């Protein structure tokens, strides 16, 4: 079977009831809050403006990148360009080494997850601490985030209390205030001592050379304000034309993510601190391509408009049953199933578009109107053309072809199937799917007869 490991992970996730409960609790809250936050009229309006702003960015990406570099440098930001993950990691490592950084604090960033920055920096002997509460928890657990907005939504508080108690060397109570207080105290010390802060970026504003970070906890602000050096690693697709376009996208991003009209903090980094100011002495931006330019101008370029709100994960019936880890990619859910095969060439990544019911809920909910389900269908076709298929599917189609090819055999199989369905047994191979569903009664007439009666097809000879 192709993509064997993927199938195994999915099966394990589907069998894990505790996981379903944890995932459902979070995603439902996000979805309901998002729905309640705006009137339908404002939602439609904000979505249209956000989509226009983001598509404009995709169309003008090269110009915006050039403008961003010039403007950022005018404000004293050092801009680096990275072709791929390896280059991005090497650039960050080099900056850290140059400053003799040993303790690094980091705020949540999918781009840094994508390139596995922490693992590489740790290999250089640097201590990198995630400071977003959810990221800190998954880091302690030795896991990866399972949702692009809520990294540890798959975990129960007992597990978190266990991790914190181990870290503290004493019992930490399970209630949220005790858990949060522990993380706050532990991480405050790190913020005070860190030599380097690493962040991602939600937007890069070309006309201003600014990096925009959207956060709720304040750790993003800490990472970009307290250490003497700040490095932002950002995918080039995060560019927007202007502050006005950024405001258009930002008006819907937190609504779609968590149902907030705005997050607690929006940081707009416009350069290093000047003489007499507190703040970082050096600010670096690493503009990363890592597969983006290959998507640009192609049939899937619309996905570059994604603002990583996570709404498509929250609404997805597949994500609900599997959680994020089953996808085996930093990007999970519908956007992950579209983006991963475009960024990663391996066969498992190519199989991800099959993790969808194609219900289209993701496209409906997407605040920038990305036609996710259409891309999923197209990427399935691409995967099949590349020979990525599931063995069970192969067997089924081969069996169908055999059963149906001579008309006489087709009629025989059809009759047997009707009998089996009438008896209520269903098809044994499909039982996993039909269990819990009631099939409609088998019709008495046949479509073929009906069509013939109506003269729509010819009489059988």
């Amino acid at each position, binding site marked *: 079977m192709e993509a064997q490991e993927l199938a195994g992970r999915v099966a394990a996730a589907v069998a894990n009831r505790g996981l379903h409960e944890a995932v459902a609790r979070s995603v439902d809250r996000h979805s309901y809050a998002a729905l309640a936050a705006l009137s339908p009229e404002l939602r439609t309006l904000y979505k249209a403006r956000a989509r226009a702003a983001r598509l404009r960015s995709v169309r003008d990406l090269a110009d915006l990148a050039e403008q961003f570099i010039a403007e950022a440098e005018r404000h004293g930001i050092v801009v680096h360009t990275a072709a791929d993950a390896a280059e991005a990691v090497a650039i960050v490592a080099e900056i850290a080494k140059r400053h003799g950084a040993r303790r690094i604090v980091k705020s949540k960033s999918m781009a840094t997850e994508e390139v596995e920055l922490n693992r590489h920096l740790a290999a250089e002997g640097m201590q990198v601490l995630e400071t977003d509460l959810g990221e800190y928890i998954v880091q302690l657990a030795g896991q990866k985030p399972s949702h692009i907005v809520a990294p540890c939504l798959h975990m129960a508080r007992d597990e978190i209390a266990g991790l914190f108690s181990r870290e503290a060397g004493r019992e930490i109570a399970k209630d949220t205030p005790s858990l949060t207080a522990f993380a706050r105290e532990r991480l405050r010390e790190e913020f005070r001592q860190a030599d380097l802060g690493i962040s991602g970026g939600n937007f890069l504003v070309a006309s201003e050379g600014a990096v925009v970070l959207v956060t709720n906890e304040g750790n993003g602000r800490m990472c970009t304000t307290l250490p003497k050096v700040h490095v932002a690693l950002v995918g080039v697709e995060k560019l927007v034309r202007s502050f006005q376009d950024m405001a258009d996208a930002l008006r819907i991003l937190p609504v779609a993510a968590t149902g907030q009209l705005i997050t607690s903090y929006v940081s707009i980094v416009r350069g290093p601190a000047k003489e007499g100011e*507190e703040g970082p002495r050096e600010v670096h931006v690493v503009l990363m391509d890592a597969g983006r330019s290959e998507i640009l101008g192609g049939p899937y370029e619309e996905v570059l408009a994604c603002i990583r709100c996570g709404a498509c994960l929250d609404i997805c019936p597949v994500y609900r049953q599997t959680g994020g880890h089953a996808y085996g990619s930093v990007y999970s859910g519908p956007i992950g199933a579209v983006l991963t095969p475009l960024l990663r060439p391996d066969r498992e990544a190519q199989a991800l578009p099959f993790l969808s019911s194609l219900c289209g809920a993701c496209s409906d909910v997407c605040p920038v109107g990305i036609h996710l389900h259409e891309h999923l269908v197209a990427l399935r076709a691409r995967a099949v053309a590349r020979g990525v298929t599931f063995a069970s599917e192969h067997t089924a189609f081969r069996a169908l072809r055999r059963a149906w090819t001579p008309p006489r055999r087709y009629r025989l199989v059809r009759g047997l199937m009707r009998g089996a369905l009438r008896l209520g047994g269903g098809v044994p191979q499909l039982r996993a799917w039909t269990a819990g569903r009631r099939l409609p009664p088998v019709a008495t007439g046949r479509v073929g007869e009906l069509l013939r009666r109506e003269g729509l097809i010819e009489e059988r000879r």
Partner: protein
Amino acid sequence: MRREEFLGRLRSRPAGSHLPSEQTAPDLPSPPGDILSAFREMAAKAGCRVALGSFPELRRTLMEEVGQGSVLRGGEEPVLALSADLAAVPVEEPFAADWGVALADGALARTGSMCFVRRPASPLTATLVPPRIAVLVPTSRIVWDLADYLVDPPEGGSLAIVSGPSRSADIENDLSIGVHGPGDVLVLVWDDGDGVG
């Protein structure tokens, strides 16, 4: 990768060839007439405590709130006047402060937000590091939306837009306040006599 090569790769692609042609986005509705009330309402909704008054009244409120606590504050004249009788900690020691006191450069009614700009007299740490903060918001600086505030971007360094206390719902989606940033945000809306614009 060299910069020219990086940009060249982007340029070599027919960007936008699979996107619909550009359409004009619909206009935003006009803001309500009374944006002061809207700001107060939305700041409270974002989890702030909101007080409205004259400068002496707000000064008294702050005194009562802070009491014997220490403050990390900006060096702007109204902030110094507001917190004159309070014990200040040096800007280099933000972690020592019980309170932060700052002057908002702008405020956003639609979201109940306050805007801060890094300048020599305005450390961004004052609204970030102390567990509780008090923010002076002159009514003349309230606008409707972030887009309005950024039409003419303020002079100075990095910006922070603050909307309520620090929050997280990472543990079983259970909201907790004051994770890394301040857990208590007191907004002192100061009718500075210039009207609301």
